């Protein structure tokens, strides 16, 4: 029990909220593109570019918020490139997304070497981190539970407030409706005179906005530094969440809390002497397991389809149907 107390306590929950924020922001960003019918594997690169340019902006201007703006601008540039290639040139989403991720990785390392003459990471150089927001009265109201609502950076609050806002956005605004129509029934959108191209551009740029914030949180939030490939797969985990949540903000939140918890819990395990290499795999294993389990649960539809195709086969050819009954 004592060990459990040490493992799970207020600090762990607060840490979960902190580690959830970046992945929640980037996944909410991806929800725009998912809803608009674009498979956006480029989230990782947008986030990484956001993290790097947030640090650059923070150093150049001496202001954390100007840094965040720089990070967001960089992520928007990547999102725009993605939209131009995928929407206008109709290039393959997977190829463009992967290439932009590779571009972001190579570009940030090259620029780091060009500007700072170092490899690996940028520390110091006058990076200004984001301030912590102390909510007045939290201590008096909640006592030892105060760290659950107070003392986070502004971006953490933005991430969690964005969830209900997105729910309203999809259900109550015209643009939200347009995005959903374009994703679910592009023919209907076209018939209604909605410009698919314009809606997809807007969705991509909104995605870049939130991915940039997520990146800025990584490099200016709780640690003020940039390291090579510091997004370390969070963008891909966000894509995994988007696949099984279908971009619904509340399901995205649930998925992200799971990963945030896995992240925070694995950091905690490390202090208990578990080998760090194994502990670090935990978030990825959780992501993969969730992806597999939830796609297994989506199987009724597939079984129905299989049954339908089997019936079709039965009516034409008995032999191939018997093969089809035992796939693998």
């Amino acid at each position, binding site marked *: 029990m004592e060990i459990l107390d040490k493992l799970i306590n207020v600090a762990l929950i607060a840490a979960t909220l902190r580690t959830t924020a970046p992945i929640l922001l980037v996944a909410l960003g991806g929800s725009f593109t998912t809803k608009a019918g674009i498979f956006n594997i480029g989230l990782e690169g947008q986030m990484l570019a956001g993290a790097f340019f947030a640090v650059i902006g923070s150093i150049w201007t001496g202001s954390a918020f100007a840094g965040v703006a720089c990070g967001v601008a960089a992520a928007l540039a990547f999102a725009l490139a993605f939209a131009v290639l995928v929407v206008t040139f109709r*290039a*393959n989403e997977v190829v463009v997304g*992967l290439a932009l991720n590779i571009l972001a990785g*190579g570009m940030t390392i090259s620029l780091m070497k060009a500007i700072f003459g170092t490899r690996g990471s940028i520390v110091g150089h006058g990076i200004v981190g984001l301030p912590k927001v102390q909510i007045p009265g939290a201590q008096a109201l909640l006592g030892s539970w105060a760290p659950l609502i107070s003392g986070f950076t502004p971006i953490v609050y933005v991430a969690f407030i964005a969830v209900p806002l997105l729910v309203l956005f999809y259900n109550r605004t015209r643009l939200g409706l347009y995005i959903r129509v374009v994703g679910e029934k592009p023919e209907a959108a076209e018939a209604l005179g909605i410009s698919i191209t314009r809606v997809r551009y807007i969705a991509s740029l909104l995605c870049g906005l939130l991915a940039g914030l997520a990146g800025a949180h990584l490099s200016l939030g709780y640690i003020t530094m940039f390291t090579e490939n510091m997004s370390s797969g969070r963008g*891909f985990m966000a894509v995994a969440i988007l696949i099984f949540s279908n971009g619904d903000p509340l399901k995205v939140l649930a998925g992200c809390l799971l990963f945030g918890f896995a992240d925070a819990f694995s950091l905690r395990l490390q202090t208990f002497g578990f080998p760090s290499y194994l502990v670090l795999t935990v978030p990825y*294993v959780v992501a993969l397991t969730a992806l597999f389990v939830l796609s297994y649960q989506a199987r009724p539809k597939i079984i129905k389809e299989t049954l339908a195709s089997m019936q079709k086969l039965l009516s034409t050819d008995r032999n191939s149907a018997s093969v089809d009954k035992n*796939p*693998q």
Partner: protein
Amino acid sequence: MMNDRLRAFSGQIIAIGVALLLGAIIILMVGESPVRVLMTLLRGAFGDQEKIAGTLLQTTPILICGVAACIGLRGGMFNVGIEGQLFLGGFAAAWVGFSFSLPPGIHTLAALALAIAAGAAWVAIPAYFRARYNTNEVVSTILSNYIAVLLTSYFTIFLFKRPGGWSETPPILATAYLPEIFSFSRLNWGLAIGLLLAVGVALVFRYTSWGYGVTMVGSAPKFAEYGGVNVKRQGFVVLLLSGAVGGLAGGVETLGVHHRFMEGFAPGFGFDGLIAALLANGSPVATIVTALFFGALRSGSLLLEVDTSASREIITVIQALIILSVSAQVLIKRRGDSQAGERRWKF
């Protein structure tokens, strides 16, 4: 027919030209002269016979990974997990190399066989879920890369660390080496394995009904299903084979070059291979050319780090730009197609 090919080829060349132009702008942005970078790259890649051998040495893993990617792409699958399969294959080969003592030749073959098995095993779960439940293989294989890299690091550092060494396994026995071709370079017969594999896979795709079925599943799954191909089983087999070849790439790298497994072993070869295969439009033989191109870039970039102020990662920027401009031009050409068709990378 010939005209089409010529147009496709010239389109590819134009796209590479555009990418190099953009690359030049980025090189100017990081404060280097593009001409100097280009000359350094060329000198680093082809300056003398050792440099040329070095280029071929870098080409080998890219080529084998590229063939792995081609197998997947032909069957309509993005195996983005080649990097992870490479790491596990590399570790498996090293393990056979340092744990057993077998006669020369047999030792090498046994190590390569386990590398192949490890690569296939690593992709088996994503492949099963892709085939059975249509789980997106791009995401599952990308995420499994991170696990593979951490897991092999764990094996290396916690279970099999060389006493007194630093994050590397003991060296493999000389009986397991892939022999070197020249005395002046670490270039080894792995290159021959890669070339044979590329040609062999191309022949299988061209002349066997199985290969034809795979290509059909990749380009027209409905048609293939109607024609009697078990699309699900074939998808599983295609990913498994792709993973097996990815594992082989790791085995070749261990037995031919490093003679041990270490942390940060062969970074990025899996992604380079995927890019090479995409640039080659999924053709294994054309991948020989694109892999050589990327091998030269990699080899040249080593000198780049020494002789100029640019970082060697500038070449990954150029590679990404090439793929982006190629992806755009492929589709300009096909503007007449339906939207669904246009949004797929065609092979």
